[in-house]
């Protein structure tokens, strides 16, 4: 065989590459996915800018900058290659900033995104290993640590300098829709109309106000198959269903519910829509819950996960202590994802129900 060896070397310039099948690959990659999700968040960010002006953007920039810096530091400390340009740190920073109030002091997003990247992500082993969504873990951490300036019931929307933004949000201090829904549900439609809710001309966190912008961005992700539509759909529908059906304590005692006759079906639907469009549900359902790393693997599992988050949001909003339950509902469901994965494994080809048919 030696004779032939030499001959074949002259034909090829370099040594052949040998690798396992398949030798083709999809053009998709982690940076492409992460940057697509970042791009999908831009419309909501723009509405945030329209609503809350430059300061809000400064909060976003600080959050992203600290996220990138802490990812680089964590990875150098762990001795693994630094992959800051794959966009996952940027995404965490962006998402965290978008669920903070627009007037929050700058050290808050800094601490939050540092916690999110270092503790909630790299302590578990980097991208793909974390159990809880880093952005939400960061927000929960901030909520617990600095509740003074974050969960202020009356979120002051605008500093004097930015009075009168383009979308007509002008009240200096105005309760967020969520708060009104919790404390004074009957008086809700006096203050906010569904239209304004949908457009996003309402007070709230930087990126969560405009349902329209969020749905726009999310539909791009659904088309590119980075988000499985079953998850947000089951999430939002569960919240709307429970908001309509469950009884709630009225403004002045007594209960509001269809069964008790104090709520017409129409009003119940309006309340369901109000719950869906207000607070962080839209950004939670489309961008936080659908984080690939912390959501179940199969689409059946994602539907169950979405429904679970929905139930928790409804419970917290109607009976819990917080006006806004999205962040906690997703974090709690993240804890159960491993259990969902275990029970939603698909039947192997020919081993499940079909086996009986033709075995």
């Amino acid at each position, binding site marked *: 065989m030696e004779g032939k060896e030499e001959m074949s070397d002259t034909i090829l310039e370099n040594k*052949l590459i040998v690798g396992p099948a398949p030798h083709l690959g999809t053009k998709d990659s982690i940076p492409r996915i992460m940057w697509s999700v970042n791009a999908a968040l831009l419309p909501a960010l723009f509405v945030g800018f329209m609503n809350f002006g430059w300061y809000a953007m400064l909060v976003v920039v600080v959050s992203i900058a600290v996220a990138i810096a802490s990812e680089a530091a964590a990875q150098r400390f762990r001795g693994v290659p630094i992959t800051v340009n794959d966009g996952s740190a940027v995404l965490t920073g962006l998402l965290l900033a978008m669920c903070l109030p627009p007037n929050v002091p700058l050290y808050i997003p800094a601490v939050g995104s540092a916690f999110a990247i270092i503790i909630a992500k790299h302590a578990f082993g980097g991208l793909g290993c974390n159990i809880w969504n880093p952005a939400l873990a960061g927000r929960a951490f901030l909520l617990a640590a600095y509740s003074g300036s974050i969960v202020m019931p009356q979120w002051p929307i605008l500093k004097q300098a930015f009075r009168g933004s383009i979308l007509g949000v002008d009240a200096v201090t105005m309760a967020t829709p969520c708060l009104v829904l919790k404390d004074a549900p009957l008086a809700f439609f006096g203050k906010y109309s569904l239209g304004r809710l949908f457009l996003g001309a309402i007070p709230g966190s930087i990126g969560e106000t405009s349902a329209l912008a969020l749905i726009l961005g999310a539909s791009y992700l659904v088309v590119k198959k980075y988000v499985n539509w079953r998850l947000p759909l089951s999430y939002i529908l569960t919240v709307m269903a429970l908001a309509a059906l469950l009884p709630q304590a009225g403004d002045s005692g007594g209960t509001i519910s269809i069964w008790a006759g104090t709520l017409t079906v129409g009003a119940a639907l309006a309340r369901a829509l109000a719950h869906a469009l207000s607070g962080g549900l839209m950004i939670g359902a489309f961008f936080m819950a659908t984080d690939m790393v912390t959501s179940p693997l199969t689409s059946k599992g994602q539907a169950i996960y979405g429904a679970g988050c929905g139930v928790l949001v409804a419970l917290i909003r109607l009976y819990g202590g917080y006006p806004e339950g999205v962040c906690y509902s997703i974090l709690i469901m993240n804890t159960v994802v491993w259990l969902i994965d275990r029970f939603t494994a698909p039947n192997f080809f020919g081993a499940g129900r079909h086996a009986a048919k033709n075995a």
Partner: protein
Amino acid sequence: MLPPVIILGFLGLLFGIGLYVASRVFRVTVDTRIERVERALPGSNCGACGLAGCHGLAKAVVHGSADVTSCIPGGEHVAHLVADIMGVEAKVAEKRVAVLRCQGRDVGDRFIYEGIATCQAANLMHKGPKECIFGCIGFGDCARACSFDALHMIKGFPEVDEAKCVSCAKCVAACPKALFELIPLSKLVHVRCKSLESGRAVRKICKVGCIACKKCETVCEFDAVHVKDNLAVFDYEKCTSCGLCVKECPTGTIMSYRETRKGLGLWPVKNAVSGES
């Protein structure tokens, strides 16, 4: 003042009696020797004894289904401890150590390998990227398998730290080329190659491989080495580690461990021929 004393005294008495009655009712005879044996074992659950961890071995030893010396990593020290607990004499086998049958540190590659960086996986791709398909691929499966920190990849090639090696045979199982062998410490001379290729082919790809020149076979006075399928193979019963073949071997494939082991103070063996230890 009286009631507190009564309370505590009465409760203490009541519970004392209760516990005594319970311990009578729920009597279970447990052989305490199992715990004592388990405490004597190293507790690394390496499975070298073939049983499910140290607890499994402790139970087997007490039930008599395993010999007191079956804990290989424990070696002589543990064997004596267990023997004392069981009250029997410990016949300890000689300490064995893993020997790497390859020196092909700088063998070139046949192709550029793209895939999982473990020897097991690379071996599936045309027997690995190395020019020599019998030699070490160098992705370190053995070093990862060794739980006694006795095996390290130094510049991409395994090195056995014989002082720490407890011959638990994990590296033997991990290497897809089966390059590790457990050989008693008293044997000091080993062939560091496993290639069955013809001498001409070996000389082209590896400077330290066995080229089947049979010089070792001719010089050996104890008929302890034979060249079969282009490879010198040792018969360790006859081999007296005299080292004659080491000088004869033109490519240095046959190596003597006398200096390294003496340095480590592991086993000062008297040389059968020259008499110096």
